[in-house]
């Protein structure tokens, strides 16, 4: 189900841009054409702003040397913020997960971004994600709790179990985000694993 590339590479400016856009996720050849013609008709500043934004994305965004999140300034704003609780680290798979948790406003600790999850059959082991950076970070720190917030699919669970095994001996409290029923859903559709965990993790009302 891969996208069809044109047989001969486009050489003219319009064709080239259509081709570039159609490489983007979720954009097919028709949408690529629509965006291209929109830009052609748009004022020049708008096109220039887009080009400049793309260039600076690649030039200015790097990984934070502390939490491995994407950032323009190293260390990132979250790591630099002295009001945050530096005794807690929340471990997530992707930078997008930080945005999701930050959006809740319910967490005031720090993060660590792994940039992936262990997937043995895809050949992604512990060395392919940012585990070493995490362990180095946990040595000689005041961190008292690590929250494992990897996805609840098989890869995420594997990663969480593996990290728990590495971190527990360091004398740091290891917790896992609660797994159970998502808000706004119906019980009858829940699967066995979710329901079992929801029962195990039930709380006083």
């Amino acid at each position: 189900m891969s996208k069809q590339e044109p047989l001969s590479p486009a050489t003219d400016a319009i064709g080239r841009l259509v081709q570039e856009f159609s490489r983007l996720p979720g954009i097919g050849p028709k949408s690529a054409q629509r965006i291209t013609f929109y830009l052609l008709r748009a004022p020049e500043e708008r096109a220039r702003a887009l080009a400049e934004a793309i260039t600076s994305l690649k030039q200015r965004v790097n990984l934070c040397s502390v939490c491995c999140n994407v950032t323009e300034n190293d260390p990132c704003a979250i790591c630099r913020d002295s009001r945050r609780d530096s005794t807690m680290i929340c471990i997530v798979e992707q930078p997008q997960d930080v945005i999701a948790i930050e959006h809740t406003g319910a967490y005031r600790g720090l993060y660590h971004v792994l940039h992936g999850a262990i997937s043995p059959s895809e050949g992604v082991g512990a060395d392919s994600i940012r585990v070493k950076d995490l362990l180095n970070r946990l040595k000689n720190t005041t961190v008292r709790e690590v929250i494992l917030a990897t996805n609840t699919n098989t890869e995420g669970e594997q990663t969480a179990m593996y990290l728990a095994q590495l971190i527990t001996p360091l004398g740091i409290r290891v917790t896992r985000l609660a797994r159970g029923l998502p808000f706004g859903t119906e019980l009858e559709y829940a699967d066995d694993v979710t329901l079992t965990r929801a029962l195990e993790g039930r709380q006083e009302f």
Partner: protein
Amino acid sequence: MPEEREYRTEAIVIRKTKLGEADSIITFFTPHRGRIQGFAKSLRKPKSKLAGHLELLTYSQVSFARGRNIDTITGAQTIDAFLPLRNNLWLSSCGLYVAELVYHFTPEGQENFTLFRLTLDTLRRLCRGEDTEVSLRFFELHLAEGAGYRPELDTCVNCRSALAETTNFFSPQAGGMLCPSCRQMQPTGFPVSPAAQGIMRHLQRAEYPAIPATGIDPESLHEVEKISGAYLKYLLEKDVRSAAWLEMLKKSLG
């Protein structure tokens, strides 16, 4: 099989591939349709009704609607989620190893009920906490057999004479054991101790073996692991990726 517009089958999820923003392509191993694929729309959204029933290593009843390129999954209900595998890193890794091997050893759409039974039994054995090394070696040998590559362990594959109770040699290329004199003419294969040969023959017997009260010597079992791993790698013409992960875990778990 007649081309019905909708169909339903029991299936074990052996692989998941992300597609687009929130969709997935799922590969199943089924009792009567062999390895099949299905398209699951919006599976990766938190409110997906099907996600939990279509997670890797889940045994489910799955409904499909025929599509032009790929069939769409319209429903799924868990039969067995193999819960003990979910809470144990080693066991879930063993399960993923089984799934990866099944994926590579089965052609698409070809019924292989024996192999399906073997896969289901192996996952259940892992859940019951039976010796994982024995379960996996049994699985590997019978997987090769089920796929049409039963290794010859009783006679020399070259001269057809019965093997003596001595160190013989396993040659992946020849598909079985070579006696010491044939080995000299074909310098391929690994030396296999008489104890390891005994374990391999014991495991190759059709029924899941009762482990002797004295247990199986771990060193000889490790020898079998190396031989069977090399055989599978030869048959696949590539590395089994999750085998490397199991090896790494074994070292770190001690």
